[in-house]
Structures are given as structure tokens and as C-alpha cells.
């Protein structure tokens, strides 16, 4: 039997071959067309199959109809004035008033600055990532609950050779591996970037967020170095009165693994359990959680082709959205991505 997908494939071929809209309509949407016949014949098949094929066929019919309608209206746009983009402009581009950069850009710049001063450089990596880099190389055991810490978006893989599952990276840490595979220690770099979590959106969580990853690999790097670096960063960003505290945690790619908090910059660590006096930013705890860190796991060093008997390293991941929200007192993460002119013009 011909499937709705077969019909759609043929439709796409016709679109590429520029078959006119009128013909397409007759071929795909008329009463006798294979797709419509298929839809009409659904009543004769068993209910379970009917629902499945029916919903697929209907969706494809909708897509075909939308596309044809658009092609149809293209011909109606013919009266548009032609623009010659290659014509060199005589006038200069007019600036009425300067534009505004996004608070996330400013927060990223402020977060990056102290590290650049120390001598770190910046690396980047893809957001559509292989499971191999997002998990396996980072020492996440196969079929282990550690993989549930971050809810992952998986994507359909249209490649011919599928060597590893495709997903949207859940952290910037895969870039540790990617960058180290092409360089040698000592290495000190940062990775600012977007990551994805398949989580319900609320005032402090979105299904995409921004992180700044840091990696230092050298001889004799210690946990004490990591604590100094994080303290230096926090004080550079928020002032000398702000301290860090660390707590044990678990991330498969570091050992030991820690979680980092810093003094609440609003109540300056006063906290309070009194409902009326409770600081709304730190919820009365006096501390704000900013990210995770730790000493690079020997298995991860090995996956980077780094000799783990000579080198050690630290890594950290900090939340940039949280930093932007703190610096500019933005109460809800969603406000940052609605792109209302009145929001952007404030910065």
C-alpha cells in the first residue's frame, strides 16, 4: 500500500521540479488524488491503524495544502517592486540613535573578562551534539541514572552513517573534549554558550539556557586552585564582600565534584527565616547557587588524550542567565527572550 510519506516525497520532488500550483492541486488535493483516496479509505481499516495512518495522512495533507497556498500567492506578489540589492547605495546608512545590546551579551562579557585577564582563551563548539561527546567521553556510564540528571532533547538523525545518537547538548562540557583533542596542555580556556534541557519552563528555568564553561589543565592543578579561581571570578564580578562556599556534589566528569554558591548580592548573606524579611533572591538562604565544578576525572583526561599521570585539571560550569538576572534585577528568565523593544531599550 502507498503510504502518506511516499506521497509527500513525490510532492517534494514536484516542488523542486517547479510544477505549477494548479497542477499540484489537481495531483495532490483532488478527490481522486492518492492522498485523498487514502484518507477516504481509512474507514475500512481497523481502528488502531486508522488513528495512526489518519493522523499522519492528515498532517501531510495540511502541509501540502499550506505549501500550495503559498506557491499560489507567490504569483500574486508579482506586482511587487523589484529591488536591485547589488546596486551600490549612494546614501550612507542613517543612524537615528544607537541600538542596545542584550543583557545576556553584557553578562557574558562581564563574566568572561576576569578570566581573560588571567590568560584564559575562548573555545566554542556545536549545539547539536553527539551523545558520544555529551555523555560517553565525559565518563557518564552507559545506562546509568547519571544520564537522567539533565533531561535531554534528542533529535531525528537524517545522516546516512549514524555512529552516535544526535542530541542538543545539555552542557558546554563536550567542548572540553573537542578542544583538548586538538591541543596540548597546558590549556586554560572558557566556553560560553547555549545548552538545552527538556524541562518545564518557569521563572528560573527555560528549555534552553546559557553557561560558561571553564577548563584548566596543567601540571599540579589542585582543588585549591579551583577554589581560588572561582573566588577571584566572584569578587571581580560582584565585589570584594562576596564570598564563595562549596558543597560536595556529583558530576561524572569530575572527581572530586563540587557545587558553588556565593553570598547573596542582594541581602549580602543575611538570609533570614522570617517570612516578612526573607530575601526574595536567595529565598532567605543567604547564598545563591551559581554552578558546578570539580577536578577533571582521570577517564576524561584520557579521553582528551592527555596523560593523566602527569597532568591534572579543573573544570567548572556557571549559569550566565542567572548572572544576567542578578546584575540587572530581572525577576523572570522568560523576560529575557520575549524580545520586547521596551525590555531591550533598558540596557
Amino acid at each position, binding site marked *: 500500500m502507498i503510504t502518506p510519506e511516499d506521497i509527500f516525497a513525490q510532492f517534494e520532488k514536484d*516542488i523542486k521540479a517547479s510544477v505549477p500550483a494548479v497542477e499540484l492541486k489537481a495531483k495532490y488535493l483532488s478527490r481522486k488524488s492518492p492522498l485523498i483516496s487514502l484518507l477516504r479509505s481509512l474507514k475500512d481499516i481497523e481502528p488502531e491503524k486508522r488513528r495512526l495512518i489518519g493522523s499522519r495522512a492528515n498532517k501531510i495533507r495540511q502541509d501540502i495544502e499550506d505549501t500550495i497556498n503559498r506557491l499560489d*500567492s*507567490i504569483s500574486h*506578489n508579482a506586482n*511587487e*517592486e523589484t*529591488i536591485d540589492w*547589488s546596486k*551600490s*547605495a549612494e546614501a550612507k*546608512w*542613517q543612524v*537615528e*540613535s544607537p*541600538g*542596545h545590546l542584550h543583557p545576556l*551579551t*553584557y553578562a557574558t*562579557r*562581564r563574566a568572561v573578562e576576569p578570566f581573560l585577564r*588571567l*590568560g584564559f*582563551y*575562548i573555545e566554542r563548539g556545536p*549545539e*547539536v551534539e553527539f551523545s558520544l561527546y555529551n555523555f560517553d567521553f565525559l565518563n557518564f556510564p*552507559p545506562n*546509568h*541514572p547519571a544520564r537522567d540528571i539533565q533531561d535531554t532533547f*534528542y*533529535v*531525528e538523525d*537524517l*545522516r546516512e552513517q549514524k555512529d552516535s545518537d544526535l542530541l*542538543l547538548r545539555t552542557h558546554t562540557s563536550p567542548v572540553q573534549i573537542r578542544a583538548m583533542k586538538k591541543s596540548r596542555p597546558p590549556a*586554560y580556556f572558557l566556553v*560560553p554558550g*547555549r545548552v*538545552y534541557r527538556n524541562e518545564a*519552563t518557569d521563572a528560573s528555568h527555560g*528549555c534552553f539556557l546559557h553557561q560558561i564553561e571553564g577548563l584548566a589543565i596543567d601540571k*599540579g*592543578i*589542585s*582543588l585549591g*586552585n579551583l577554589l*581560588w579561581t572561582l573566588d577571584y571570578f566572584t569578587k571581580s564580578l560582584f565585589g570584594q564582600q562576596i564570598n564563595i*562556599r562549596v*558543597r*560536595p556534589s556529583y558530576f561524572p566528569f569530575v572527581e*572530586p565534584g563540587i*557545587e558553588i554558591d556565593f553570598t547573596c548580592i542582594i541581602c549580602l548573606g543575611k538570609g533570614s527565616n522570617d517570612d516578612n524579611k526573607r530575601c526574595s533572591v536567595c529565598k532567605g538562604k543567604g547564598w545563591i547557587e551559581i554552578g558546578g565544578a570539580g577536578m577533571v576525572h582521570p577517564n576524561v583526561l584520557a579521553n582528551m588524550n592527555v596523560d593523566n599521570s602527569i597532568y591534572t585539571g579543573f573544570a567548572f560550569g556557571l549559569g550566565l542567565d542567572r548572572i544576567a538576572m542578578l546584575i540587572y534585577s530581572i*525577576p523572570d528568565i522568560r523576560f529575557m*527572550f*520575549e*524580545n*520586547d*523593544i*521596551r525590555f531591550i531599550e533598558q*540596557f
Partner: protein
Amino acid sequence: MLISYELLKEIFPGTPSLDKVLDLLIYKSVEVDATFSLPIKAENIIIGQIIEIKPHPNADRLQVTTVDIGNQIKTIVCGANNIKIGQKIPVILPGNKVANGMLIEKRTVRGIESDGMLCSTEELGLSDSSSGILILPVDFEIGSNFNKIWGSPDVINVSVTPNRGDLLSHYGIARELAALQGDILKEPGLSLLSGSAARDKISVDIKAPKACSKYIVSYFTNCAILESSYRIQRQLYLLGQRPLNNVVDVTNYVMTVLGQPLHAFDKNKLKDNLIIVRFASSGEKLLLLDGQEIKLKDTDLVIADSQKPIALAGIMGGKDSAISENTTDVILEAAHFNPQVIRSTSKRLHITTDASYRFERFVDYNLPDSSSSLAAKMITQETSGIIAGQISVNKAVSKLPNIVYKIDESNLLIGENIDRSEHTNILTNLGCKVHKDTPNIYAITPPSWRHDLNISEDLTEEVARVYGLNNISKKPISLKTTSNKDIIEIKIQALKDMLAKNGLNEVVNSSFITHKDAIFFKSFGIASIHILNPVSPENSWFRPLLTPNLLHNISKNQHEAERFPVFEIGNVAYFKNDQLNENTSLAVAIFPFNMNDTSFLKMLQEFLGASFECKPEPNLLSDNFTLIYVNSKPVGYVSDLSDTAKKQWKIKVPTMVLEISIESLLSNIKTKKVDLGYPKQAIIYKPLSKFPRVVRDINFIGQINEDKFLGFITDIKGQEDLENVSILSIYNGITTIRFTFRSFEKTLTDAEISQNISNLTKRIEKSFNIKNQVIVEE
């Protein structure tokens, strides 16, 4: 995971104060989400004793009880069916409120006057629903205040990381607290009974030894399945669990105490007294306890009798063999299952239970023994049953690792000179066997419950956290500075600065696009990436271009501003010729756009040091769609919007869009130094009104002093819902001033606006000596 503080104290008398427990856990062990206390939420509950029960003369389902509450005898009508003469029960008298706030009054129920109410856990506020009156211990004193006796027990919500399965029990937390205080908690010290009696009647056959390395069966006869005792019920309520019956409650209680998931079967539902641990045959079916029927695969481990599966191993029991009120003979399972096998099935079927959660995180190989013993003791007490015996079937287990631990390397990794004796003490307290090969090199065997300790760095972490992470001194790093001015990220920042300087605003959009938008661009030959598990249908595709979401921004803001030129820089990805492509893109949208104005394009080329070759290629977006080539390679496009495109994004204004892949072009940008500018003054975000704005242009006869007017604007902005004021034009002796109004509370009416305008006009006339001409409405 919830931890009852009083139960913790019962298990480990050395448990410190609640605050100290939290401190120890948070700074040295695991995160604590919250603590709360669970007092009784109903008022003035008195303990009563039922001295008489009579059927209600006018209602089949009701009973009339006579209750002794100490100084008085009360007649109370009751609908529950678990009450018996002689029981002690919680009573609420008229004039008091139950947990949901309802006031109890003396009232006549079907002709019988009822002088109060017997309480279930629901009325007491301990659970959301209940199946009967809470039965109290017989030694509770009649007439005493139950609120006081119940107290205000504390509950701790601990967030255990996936590597620490050993902490998923009260005993595990107690053992950790002991170690953190330099103490060692005694082993429960429970041993199995001799198993001969059971062996005659039940046989266990492990056919999948790699998936199940231990299976202990305890066999009970003559059990009475009733409600469990107050003591067990109390702990289950504190832990947010619902008591079911004395056998199931004991299995749940022992699991929270020791961490070993247990399962109880009705022995008489088993065919041939046989318990087989095996993988399912593909296609076998099993009706689970929660009523759902599952189709099994050959990777699913099951417990079966001689004929069919009776439980999904380590996850959930089957309905057919469940304990019911008619059960007399009980079989109790305590097993050690392979975490990965349990996890695969749990993931595949989307079933997570307290049992599977623990098995996935590794349960100590030795726990089935002690938990069988504890559970056996409690089941015989609770059900008055007889234990007929216990049998244990063991298969080979992997040996505990022997870890070479070098003190000086560990100290180097921490960056602190921690004493050798301290290393030894910490590891010993945590249950490790420490063997000193040399003064510096130790051989360490971790305890059976710590499968997460495998390499020397794992032990370093243990020492560092117990020593105190915040006691480690901070050590500066020193490195050679590298020049960053040529790296892509810095050049992107330079590009952003250039665009902002030229009047463009930066937007940051989601990376997801709608199905409708994905289809639109599919006709260009761009295959978007489909998200297999999107959060919502509107977010089901990964953006192949920044353009679609930028157009949504235009659509959203076109009524808010006369001009809103925007740009975005971000990653886009798509499939092309079976290859995955991802690159960093710059998109620009400008409205209003004057036809044939190519000045932006010119400026961009100059900045990028690139020369664009433009080749028109009409498509859905516009007949004026033009591909941009640099050095004969396509890098992007520039276009206006066709009517079709305007309809798709609901755009009414003439708009120019451009999107180019920038990575290859950035190298031409000359950056002299790294310049990461940001506003030096403090900016505090101001909330936005949800209500629409209203624009009014007012003409004044006469010229206005612009400098003076700027000061005036600052003075009046924010007053009378005035969002903005600007001089639109000064022409031919006429000054046009534009007022924008918007309220935070409501949509402004015409009358309100006119009143505001009239007030403002008067002030302007007075301050600037000009005259209002006519009102021009937009």
C-alpha cells in the same frame, strides 16, 4: 528522599540536633532540598476509647458509637468500617475545626444526634485521603490531647546524587552522619533464621545469575492481614506514604529504614511453590499491581512461578499474587538485582518506583540478609504469623576493588597538606579497610555499600569533603597570557558593537521554531532538524535560520515602535545532503524599510571587509530574494517580504531581512584589542506594562527650546501614565510633540487620555510660551 528525624534518632542515638544534621549533610555529603514539620492540623484532638458500637437504625453504612473521652461519654455517628470495641481513637469535639477548616458541630445524622467525630488521617491533616479511622495504641491515655502526643515531627528532604545509592535509607544517612562525626554506626546485627523448614516447601531457581546474584525468601504462615500498628503507620505518614496493610507496610518501612526494596507475594497464588528468576520470553504478559498490563521483552527480568511471570523484578509486583485481606501465607523476597537490567526495563516501560529507583542506584549486596531478618521479625509481630523459614540462594559476585592510594598525590590534588592519620581516620570511619603498604602508599578496600569508590581520586574526594571543602586554602593559578584578539568570539563581540553603534538592537531568541515555520523554509530546500521529544508542538524544530524567530520579533514589536531595527547572532543547524551542518549566523531585520535602500548592506560589507555578489533567486519569502556570495561561495541572503511572508508572520510594515553565515567572514574584521564593553552604570530592570500604548501628536504654534524641553521631559515622564514624550518635528513655526501613554493597571479610555493631554498641554503652554493648535490623532 524523605527522612524522618525521629526515626533517624531511633536508629542512631548519636544523631546530633536537626540544624547540625543539615550542616553536616549540606557541607560534607549531599544536598538538602527542604525541611518541614508535620503536626496534626486539626484542633484539640482528644484520645477516646470505643466502648460500644451499634448499627445505625436508619442507615446501613453508618454505625453509632459510644466513646469514652475521659471525663465524658459521647455518642458519635461514624461511617468508617475499621472500628472495633475497645479501640483507642482520635476524637474531635464540636466547636473545633478539622484539617480542611471545617467546623465540627453537634448535629443530627439521620435521626441520631452525633456529638463530635472520630478522625481519620485525612481529618487530622496527615494525608490527602484515607480508608478508615486512625487506630491508636491501646496504652495511650484516654482523654489526653493527641496533638501534643503526636507532636511536630521534623522531616528532611534529602536530594541524593545518583552515585550515592547507599544514602537512600535512614540507616544509610545515619551511617554517613556517624562517619562525618568520627563515629562508626554498628551494623544492624541481624542474621537469618535457619532455612530448612522453608526449603521443603518453596524452591528458588535463579536462571539469570548475572542479573540476580542473591535471592532470599522468607516464608510465613497463619498471617492475619490487617492494618499495621500505629508506630509503622506514623513513620509512613511522615514519609509521605500511604499505609495499606501490615505486610506491605512492613516491606515499605524496612526499605526506608535499611534501603533494601522488598516484595511480598501471596504464597497460595504461586503455582508449584516455585520461584524462578529469569528473563521474560518476548511477548509474555504481566498484569501489574497498579492495574496496567505490560507486554514483556526478553531483556526484562521477571520473577515467575512454574507457569507465568508474577512480578517485574525490582520494579513492581503482579496483581494476581498480591497480598490481599484473604492472604494467610506470605512469601517475602529480598534480592540483589543488576542495576542496569532494572534500569533498562524501567526506562523502556516508563515505570519508576521506590524499588527501581534504589536498584538502579545500587543496593548493597549484603542488605538482603539483614532486611529479611528485620522484616521477618516485624511481620510476625504485626500479623501474628509464624515464620516457617528462610532460604538464601547466592550466585557469584564481583569482588570489592583494592585501590592503591598515595597520600602525597591525594594531597597534591586537593592542594592541602592533610595529615596521613587524618586520611586514615576519614577513610576508616567511612567503612574502608585501610592497609598501609608504605608510609605513603595505602591499599584501600571500600565497604560493600560504596560501589562508587573505585579509583584513588574517588577516595581523595571522600577525604576532601569530610576534611571540609571550605577549609581548603585557595591557591592562585599562574599562566602565560594568551592574546585573544583574533579569536572568533571576540570578533563576534566587535560585530555586535558595530551593529549597536549603527542603531541595531540585539535580540536573543529561542533555538526552536514552529512546524509551520519549518515547512515554510523546507520549500527552500533546507531540511530542519526535528526534535524527537519537544516540550511543545511550537518548539518541535531546531532553527535552520535565525530569520523565522526574528520575523516574529518584528511582528510583536511593529505596533510598539516606529522603528525597530534588530539583529541576532546565534547558531543554526540543518541537514544538507545527508550531512549535519551547524554554523554561526547573523540575521538582521529592519523596519520600516525604504525600497531600494542598500545602504545597510554597503555598511556591513565595509565592516566585514567582504564584497557581496548578489544573485536574485525569487522564492516564497520574496520575489526580491537575493542570494549573497562571497568569493563565489554562498554565505546568505537578503530580501524584503512578499505578501505571503507578511501573512505568515503577521507583519504589516515594509521589512528588510538578511541572514549570513559569519564564521568565514569574521577573519577579515580587524580587532586591535579585546574590547568587552558593558554599561558601567547600574541598570535596574523596570517591569513592562501588559496594556497597549496610545500615541497622540499635538501641534503647538511657536518654537520650542529643545534643551529646556529635554529637562521638562525628565520631569513629567511617568506622571499621568505618560510613557514617553518626544519632539516629532519643528517646521514652519509649528512644533509637533508626540505623547505616548500606557497604564500599568488598565487599557486607557479616550476620556482619560484627553484629560491627560489637556493637563499636559496647559503645562507646556505655560512653561514654553507656545500655543496648542489642533489635536492630530494617529
